[in-house]
């Protein structure tokens, strides 16, 4: 799989680089000029996500788990990070680790079938009676499923098998291949399609495409920014804010996230907050940038310009 190439649209352009914001790696050096958490290794979750995907493809589950753990640590609100960690731990047959990962994922998305399947499998492998609850949920969902039901049924069958003495070993192919997109090209296409759909104001379809892109690339700030943008356009400001904050946690100088978060603040009437976002853009945009100018228009107009 080629290295993640998606970038721009959300507006990163020429500015906030993921690597600039993160990576750099290593630190330390002692002294008390900063806290240990400031100087420890930092990782780019999107890059680590790609590494974990590659490792899973190569069946190197321990390496996958290391990278996936970094994703989850760097972006703890990323469902995909926890799911990826769950798959990696399950592949490594570290069922306690898989259970912990899926429990975190469950808190974020209790209706996600692959999360239910992963959690059920881990519980079954640990001979935890709570696996039955997940199996019942999967079976009930499968019974009412009318399309694209194969994965759901495979997950239910894998959990059921794992609950028997004969199924005590081995991972789940269904789990490994569901919910993860191994092709960067497919992720690219999903991302670009999402941007077009947003421009066409087909927001629900755009969200589905962004989900697909996220499954390929993990918690990438561009994707998170567009998820925030789309939820904002759907009127769900709190949800939008959550995505913007996730994007900025990963890439603090992300231009698109900063602009759109500033616009959200304008829509909420928080003009002070919006001006802070604009000041941040003005400071980071050498030679000017569209993101700063657009947010300036929003602030001047007290809302979306031209409306």
């Amino acid at each position: 799989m080629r290295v993640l190439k998606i970038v721009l649209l959300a507006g990163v352009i020429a500015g906030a680089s993921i690597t600039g914001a993160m990576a750099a790696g290593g630190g330390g050096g002692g002294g008390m000029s900063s806290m240990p958490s400031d100087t420890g290794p930092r990782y780019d979750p999107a890059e680590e996500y790609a590494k974990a995907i590659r490792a899973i493809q190569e069946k190197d589950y321990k390496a996958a788990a290391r990278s996936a753990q970094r994703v989850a640590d760097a972006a703890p609100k990323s469902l995909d990070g926890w799911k990826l960690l769950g798959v990696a731990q399950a592949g490594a047959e570290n069922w306690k680790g898989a259970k912990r990962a899926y429990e975190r994922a469950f808190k974020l998305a209790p209706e996600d079938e692959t999360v239910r399947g992963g959690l059920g499998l881990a519980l079954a492998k640990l001979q935890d009676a709570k696996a039955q609850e997940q199996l019942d949920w999967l079976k009930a969902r499968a019974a009412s499923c009318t399309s694209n039901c194969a994965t759901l049924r495979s997950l239910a069958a894998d959990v059921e098998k794992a609950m028997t003495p004969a199924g005590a070993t081995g991972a789940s192919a269904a789990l490994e291949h569901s919910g993860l997109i191994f092709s960067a090209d497919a992720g690219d296409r999903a991302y670009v399609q999402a941007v077009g759909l947003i421009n066409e104001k087909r927001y629900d379809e755009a969200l589905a495409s962004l989900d697909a892109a996220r499954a390929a690339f993990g918690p990438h700030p561009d994707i998170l920014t567009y998820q925030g943008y789309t939820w904002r356009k759907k009127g769900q400001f709190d949800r939008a804010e959550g995505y913007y904050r996730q994007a900025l946690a990963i890439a603090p100088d992300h231009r698109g996230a900063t602009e759109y978060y500033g616009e959200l603040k304008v829509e909420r009437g928080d003009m002070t907050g919006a001006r802070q976002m604009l000041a941040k853009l003005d400071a980071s945009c050498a030679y000017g940038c569209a993101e700063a100018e657009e947010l300036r228009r929003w602030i001047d107009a007290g809302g979306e310009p031209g409306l």
Partner: protein
Amino acid sequence: MDRRRRRTGALAGLALAAAGFLAAATAAEVAQPLQALHWVTPDADPVATFASQPTECLHTPADPAAAQAVEVGRAAFRTPLLLGGQAARVSLTCESCHRSGRGNPEFQFPGASGAPGTADVTLSLFSSHRGNGVHDPRPIPDLSGPRDRLKVAPDQLPAFIRGLIVEEFDGREPPPAVLAGLAAYVRALSPGACPAEARAPLRPATLLADARRALTAADRAYAAGDRPTAILMVAAARARLGLIDERYKALPAEVARLRAADTRLTALQQAMREGRADASTDLARWLRHSRRLEAALAAREAASLFNPTRLKAAANRRLLPKPT
């Protein structure tokens, strides 16, 4: 085939996608030293394409007001902030497709182009108005070519250009003087005004001269009370400094000078927003100082990517073997 299926087919065919288009952004993926290298064919020779540029076929009117309109249009033509949406965010300008007001036979924007020198102008990726769900790139015309080959009559240019800005690229409504200026600029391009040499070396002095012309237009617009136009002209000047900066990335002292010059232009824009009387004085001072900046840049030009040898090494492109 319904619209949705056509879209999917088109997108699948655009090996694109995110690749170059998106790639323009993060440093991790920016393998190219010049942003515009993302928008040309993979086998384009960086030296042949970017160490020089086409000469401009511009007939400058004698009438001062008409000349000011052309200068406003010329600067706006070269600033990404004229366009909106994704185009502005990746720093595309009119000039990206029409280098020096000509065409751009090397242009190939992932997802938006087909053959080199084409662009899909009805793409949802850029436009919330004109997306048609079909990948239908068209040849980019040479704006300085014969008039009868252009599809738009001179008197229809303002409406046509407004449609490009506002609908094709999702830009905001341009100030009236900018729209009129763009039409005046395009009208002033003419095959009869083409210099003898088809191309000229691209140097920092070339881009700084553009910046000075934009600022002179800004000064006149500001004096006429047209703040929005003046501010956009300053933005055009800043964008030119940015194009110099990317070729001096390895030279921190020169980058610092450029950043300082840009900071003064940022302050100038703010002064114009506030309608301050001293904005013109600041602008005149910047123009004077720009001569020192130019001299400093020229002194280190050989070490920058304005030097074709260094540009070639930095681009590190695998060129297709030339036919023997």
